[in-house]
């Protein structure tokens, strides 16, 4: 592509990187602007069209970033280290300071939640990473419920667990975003925490541990913060099954992603 043919290629006061700078002479600027007059609206249109694309490019169409990773390697198309599907995106205009200001806010608000059966709390779990844009960052915070004995028909203890990763690519901006990978943990003797293919385990029609936990977090969030906090429901097509350490457990996500608002 010939760069000089681009309407914005050498617009006065608009260098290649797009920032305006003072022009040296008024008369020269006037005549130059006249000759560029046809290009101004075209250039503005191009810039306007480019802005939203940049703002939302971190996840659009990038399916390999719709899963967490068990190593710090997140390049597009690399899926050998994927683990849990993203099931919830938290978003909002308010955030604390720092690169984890929004995920910390989400974590705090998750831990405030209670329901008749569970108490959400700060928990530790294995480290995972998530890709967004050209970054591969650690899941900064984790929240979960207390393990309960023989819960939901399992012989072992079970809980809800969610890892949180603030999307640096989208922030700072009008909306901060934090990706979450909700899942249902069953504490097994041989393999530690495992995500079952069905909850409860006896029903083949029951949702997977990913879908069940996503629904539970959503229900608790809407009950605690208001039903108007459901921003959107989307289908991210991240339905690939994974194999747990217990090999006969091969859960999947239905591909659904909830957008939950984090503002007051």
């Amino acid at each position, binding site marked *: 592509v010939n760069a000089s043919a681009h309407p914005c290629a050498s617009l006065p006061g608009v260098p290649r990187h797009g920032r305006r700078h003072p022009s040296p002479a008024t008369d020269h600027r006037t005549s130059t602007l006249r000759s560029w007059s046809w290009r101004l609206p075209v250039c503005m249109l191009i810039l306007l069209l480019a802005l939203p694309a940049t*703002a*939302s490019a971190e996840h*659009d*169409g990038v*399916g*390999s970033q*719709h899963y967490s990773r*068990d190593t710090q390697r997140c390049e597009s*198309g690399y*899926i*050998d280290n*994927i*683990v849990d599907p993203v099931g919830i995106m938290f*978003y909002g205009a308010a955030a604390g300071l720092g690169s984890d200001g929004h995920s910390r806010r989400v974590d705090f608000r998750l831990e405030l*939640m209670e*329901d*008749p059966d569970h108490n959400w709390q700060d928990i530790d*779990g294995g480290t995972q990473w998530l890709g967004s844009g050209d970054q591969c960052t650690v899941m900064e915070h984790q929240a979960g419920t207390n393990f309960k004995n023989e819960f939901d028909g399992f012989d072992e203890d079970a809980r809800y667990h969610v890892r949180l990763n603030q999307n640096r690519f989208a922030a700072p901006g009008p*909306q901060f*975003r934090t990706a979450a990978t909700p899942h249902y943990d069953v504490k097994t003797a*041989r*393999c*530690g*925490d495992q995500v079952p*293919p069905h909850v409860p385990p006896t029903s*083949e*029609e*029951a*949702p997977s541990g990913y*879908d069940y936990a996503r*629904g*539970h977090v959503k*229900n608790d969030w*809407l*009950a605690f913060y208001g*039903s*108007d906090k*459901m*921003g*959107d*429901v*989307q*289908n*991210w*097509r*991240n*339905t*690939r*099954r*994974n*194999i*747990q*350490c217990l*090999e006969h457990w*091969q859960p999947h996500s*239905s591909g*659904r992603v*909830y*957008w939950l*608002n984090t503002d007051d």
Partner: protein
Amino acid sequence: VRTRTILPVITLVAGVTLAIQVSGAGGHDDQTGPTGVSGTDIGRAAQGPDYSLKPCGEGFAQFHVGSSFQGHVLNTHTRFCTKPDPEPSLAAGGGIDPDSLGRSNFDSYVYGTCEAEPDQACAPPLEIQSWPACERSAADYNAGPPGQAKRIEPIDTFRVRGVPARFYEDMSLELSTNAVTVVIWGHSRDQLLAAAKALRTEPAAPFQAGPGHHLPPPVAGAEDGTLNC
């Protein structure tokens, strides 16, 4: 036609929504409740796409690649069919979000295995999912902030065995054939193409397709989300 198609879903959806809002936490995919709501409560559903669901007991063509593929033995063959979990959203104007009318309804063949550490998981070498095209098509995928969601597009489209194929960045290949959407999950493009060429149907399938032969073309609506179940 449109109203008739979505009316049963609307009725179910309205009840579930009320139950969710009344009960708060705890419920998941199996809530029930009162019925009765107008079609306007389905946010974007009045535009043309079809949101009907296929009964779990109703069969459809299920694809696989035999007892093994490139050294990976058939690991599991599983049928998933869950209940829908309708949900209102702001993006749907406060009505039921059409994207919440989807669910898991597919047949899955997993080939080979992988070694997951405790507390972790891994992606198997190959998986083939067959979905009714009336419940899953390329028109169903979208991502982005509320109000700015965009369709998730494949990075390449072409034809395999005479039918439309879409290659996605996450090492998956989708084929539209007859009234089925076949989703192949692998680890490389070459592997996915080889698996697509080896696809075949079960003997009891509504139509027969052997490896290497042309597949039946997609029926009308199978690619754009307008196919009625």
